[in-house]
């Protein structure tokens, strides 16, 4: 590795603009003539819209337009869709209820958009929004997924009887039931995975601009995947044909999944721009974000894990109810199915697995992928159950896990996945060593002397990343392929632009991707520009989520680099009168191996563009495109250990140490990878200790601001001890597995295992807030 190559801890190129206040986020964009939109949203969780009167609002100062769903429908704008078809076990397709970008006759959750007001200033738009008069007939609401399935529960969509969207299964019920019946021991649990609000620090925003002269639309939006946004807005929402719609996702302030989806607001801003003749900008307030960003998790499951007399797992049976909220968000159906139940084997050799999943409509915000997406839910079930089983069986949690680890690869699980590489014991050993696991008993005794409860918990997670082989996901119902694209443009002076379909919203692609190019051609990373986030500049791409940009996005770049390298070598061989096979590229020089003959890199590039002396028949130029479709998922894995101390008088939990030992395959920039782990752990610890979306029975979101939704702050967390022990991924050219979600996947069960260990109880609800912990201690007495 060079100082800027693969494996180097290179400081980020993109930082300069962020640390000087020069980042360019959607809300920073100004277009001449731009006006401001405010949405009128439903204050009710469930109601019929009887009448919408916009007359008073239209007469307010500064108002340019007050637009309703009826007008939107009249202009042919389509309903929002879920892009992944799931069939119930009886073969019937999922029951998708209609989701109009502006509600027409019914609202289904607090925050449902009904009317948009466009005015000269945001203040005036807000004044006018208050003047819109809407008459509702309130209906009974249901917020709890289990209750929504009960007979007589309020019906959210006519299309889904009893609010059931689909009833799906995976695995073999018969063999699993038989394993449970024959088991020497069965551990049974009911496990709740709490609902979370993603809370990227930059609120969602959209700026729609219709250019009448060109009959062309531009949308600046806070998106993780601008091309997918364009595709969906064009093909399904009829905003405009793709060639007349440019989507730009500039600097985006975090996503964590919540900015994958196409929401009503960007569609409405584009449509409203045409309707009113002015560019229209909308920026969410934080409370609007709480109400309308797609939430995460919200599962209730029962599990049964069977063991033989040697404590080997013989079967795992899961029954899950997943709350999808009021509408099916873009990828909501695949999260509690293929991103979830396919990971129920964890790191363990389990011969029989069966999972049944029912997804349910409720009068709450739509639920979709949030950092980890299904995999945290699967890991939480497995790792909570393993911990409980170890305690029931009277064996050490580490030993029980170790005994059941998969040790040979490839390994086919009973739930689709084929693990290609891993060394789970290596991560477990590393984590236990760093945590001084052996010294825990002493530390616990010392804490007890101070009147504090000390506990330790571990979690051995696996995830499927590198999403995903297109044909495989296509066969499972995906509406799109999940390849990635890259174009590598070598300029005539040897500098390089890489156009990628990945999108960076904090991941540091401008640096990491440039390191890959540096590794190949020795070009300084300052001479490599990464271009992303603009459908007019970059070829079709699939965007960034599911820890895919390293494994898939960079593999596409690698493929394009292969093509550039091959052509450059041909040109160099021709110029140096050498055999193509003898050409090597090192440190910015193109050399003939074993000789002193060489050319600087830029001369090869220049030769490609002057085209004065190219091999016979060769096209001029040095620019190549590649599309990479992964051969398999990738399988990052690791072991997390959390140690806590609880103040029994107040129930306050302090994380005294948090250890992460991960296997991410090959790593391009360890500094950035560690940063991803830190952030993921904070979100996982947040889920376990602090965060939880809370609706009251009438469907009002009680946690709709930072006054009530607990965000992890610096004082809630320790410094983390992170390390990696990597097995290269055999399924992609770079050996990368992905690291973006691991922290959020592995940490919640480690924290809860530690807390239940400290208190001496089986389970505690997340978030284990001080009051919850205090109550649990009291109940345990």
């Amino acid at each position, binding site marked *: 590795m060079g100082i800027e190559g693969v494996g180097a801890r290179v400081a980020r190129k993109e930082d300069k603009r962020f640390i000087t206040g020069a980042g360019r986020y959607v809300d920073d964009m100004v277009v001449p003539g731009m006006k401001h939109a405010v949405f009128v949203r439903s204050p009710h969780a469930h109601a019929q819209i009887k009448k919408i009167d916009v007359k008073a609002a239209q007469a307010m100062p500064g108002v340019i337009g007050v637009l309703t769903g009826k007008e939107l429908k009249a202009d042919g704008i389509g309903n929002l869709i879920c892009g992944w078809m799931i069939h119930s076990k009886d073969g019937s397709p999922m029951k998708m209820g209609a989701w109009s970008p502006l509600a027409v006759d019914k609202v289904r959750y607090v925050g449902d958009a009904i009317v948009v007001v466009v005015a000269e200033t945001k*203040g005036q738009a*807000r*004044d006018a929004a*208050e003047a819109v008069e809407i008459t509702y007939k309130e209906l009974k609401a249901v917020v709890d997924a289990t209750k929504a399935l009960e007979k007589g529960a309020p019906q959210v969509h006519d299309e889904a009887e009893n609010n059931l969207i689909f009833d799906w299964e995976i695995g073999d019920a018969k063999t699993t039931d038989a394993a449970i019946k024959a088991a020497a021991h069965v551990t049974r649990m009911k496990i709740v995975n709490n609902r979370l609000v993603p809370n990227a620090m930059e609120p969602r925003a959209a700026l729609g601009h219709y250019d009448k002269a060109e009959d062309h639309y531009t949308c600046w939006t806070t998106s993780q995947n601008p091309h997918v946004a364009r595709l969906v807005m064009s093909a399904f929402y009829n905003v405009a044909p793709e060639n007349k719609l440019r989507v730009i996702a500039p600097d985006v302030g975090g996503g964590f999944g919540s900015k994958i989806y196409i929401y009503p607001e960007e569609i409405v801003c584009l449509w409203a721009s045409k309707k009113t003749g002015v560019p229209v900008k909308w920026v969410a307030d934080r*409370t609007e974000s709480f109400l309308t960003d797609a939430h995460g998790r919200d599962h209730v499951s029962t599990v049964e894990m069977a063991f033989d007399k040697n404590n080997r797992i013989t079967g795992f049976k899961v029954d899950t109810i997943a709350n999808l909220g009021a509408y099916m968000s873009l990828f909501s159906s695949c999260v509690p199915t293929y991103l979830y139940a396919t990971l129920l084997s964890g790191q363990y050799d389990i011969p029989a697995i069966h999972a049944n999943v029912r997804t349910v409509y409720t009068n709450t915000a739509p639920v979709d992928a949030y950092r980890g997406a299904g995999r945290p839910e699967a890991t939480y079930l497995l790792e909570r159950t393993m911990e409980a089983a170890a305690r029931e069986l009277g064996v050490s949690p580490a030993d029980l896990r170790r005994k059941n680890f998969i040790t040979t690869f490839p390994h086919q699980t009973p739930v689709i996945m084929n693990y290609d590489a891993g060394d789970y014991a290596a991560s477990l050993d590393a984590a236990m060593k760093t945590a001084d696991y052996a010294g825990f008993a002493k530390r616990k005794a010392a804490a007890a002397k101070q009147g504090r409860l000390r506990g330790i918990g571990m979690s051995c997670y696996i995830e499927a990343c590198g999403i995903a082989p297109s044909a495989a996901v296509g066969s499972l119902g995906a509406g799109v392929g999940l390849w990635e694209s890259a174009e590598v443009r070598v300029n005539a002076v040897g500098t390089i632009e890489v156009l990628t379909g990945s999108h960076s919203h904090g991941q540091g692609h401008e640096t990491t991707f440039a390191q890959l190019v540096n590794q190949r051609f020795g070009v300084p990373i300052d001479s490599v520009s990464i271009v992303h986030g603009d459908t007019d500049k970059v070829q079709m791409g699939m965007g960034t989520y599911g820890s895919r940009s390293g494994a898939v996005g960079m593999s596409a770049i690698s493929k394009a680099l292969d093509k550039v390298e091959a052509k450059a070598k041909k040109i160099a061989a021709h110029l140096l009168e050498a055999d193509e096979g003898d050409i090597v590229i090192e440190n910015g020089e193109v050399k003939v191996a074993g000789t002193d003959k060489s050319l600087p890199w830029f001369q090869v590039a220049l030769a490609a563009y002057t085209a004065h002396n190219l091999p016979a028949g060769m096209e001029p130029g040095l620019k190549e495109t590649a599309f990479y479709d992964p051969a398999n998922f990738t399988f990052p894995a690791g072991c997390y250990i959390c140690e806590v101390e609880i103040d029994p*008088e*107040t*129930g306050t939990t302090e994380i005294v140490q948090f250890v992460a030992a991960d296997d991410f395959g090959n790593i391009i920039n360890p500094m950035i990878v560690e940063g991803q782990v830190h952030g993921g752990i904070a979100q996982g610890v947040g889920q376990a200790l*602090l965060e939880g979306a*809370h609706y009251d029975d009438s469907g009002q979101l*009680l*946690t709709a601001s*930072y*006054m*009530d*939704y*607990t*965000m992890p702050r610096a004082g*809630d967390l320790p410094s983390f001890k992170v390390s990696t022990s990597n097995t290269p991924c055999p399924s992609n050219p770079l050996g990368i597995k992905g690291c973006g979600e691991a922290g959020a996947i592995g940490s919640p069960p480690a924290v809860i295992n530690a807390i239940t260990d400290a208190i001496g109880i089986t389970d505690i609800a997340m978030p284990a*807030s*001080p*009051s919850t912990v*205090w*109550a649990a201690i009291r109940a345990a007495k």
Partner: protein
Amino acid sequence: MYAVNYHRAASVAEAAKLVKNGDAKLLSGGMTLIPAMKTRLAAPSDLVDLSRIKDLQGVKVSGKTVTIGAATTHFDVAKDEKLRKACPALAHLASLIGDPAVRHKGTIGGSIANNDPAADYPAALLALGATILTNKRDIPADKFFKGLFETALKEGEIVTAVSFTAPAKAAYEKFRNPASRYAIVGVFVAKGKDGVSVAVTGAGDDGVFRSKEIEAALAKSFDAASLNGVKVPAKTLMSDIHASADYRANLIAVMAKRAVAAANA
């Protein structure tokens, strides 16, 4: 935020005049009022900014008497050397309010005039038996705080300072709401020549209050051990998604115990 007219007062007298405009409100640090205006929960026609009035600034200690100008920021209260000698508990309390940026703007007068049931200062002033000075009169703390967001202040009346006699011993212990970081329970204990008083913020369903149970136990002996086994009734305590009334009752006893230990340290 709705439209509003801003006025910067140069003196208390000018402020008193300006506040008679329309539906005017007094603005000090603005740490509660401005957020309320942003969400349109408050809609004053006029704002009268008190924060630049010189007479309202600063901490004075003369003998045992402490006087703090109403527009003194939490930051200035927390770092005031004279106060840290005379009543370190109050300086410490100020250092626990909000965050550094909030402490740079928020003021003691603004805080008590707003009387948020989870604010910190009301507990201190009640326990210290402080007097709230206004441009019209002096009001004892136990007459000043009246329930949730209610005070004895009359329309247009301006808090100018608070004053109290430094106690022999005092301490404040706060248990934060994990989200808002306001007090779920804050307990101020003070031992002065008139005995022990203990005031609780964040917990009462009618705002700040004195805990008779804790005071009775400490009257016997001002010692943390005196509170062993003391139960605080939960009946009149708040219950919300962050803390049940029972939990708050427990925290009052625990925080009181810790405060006494700190006061004796």
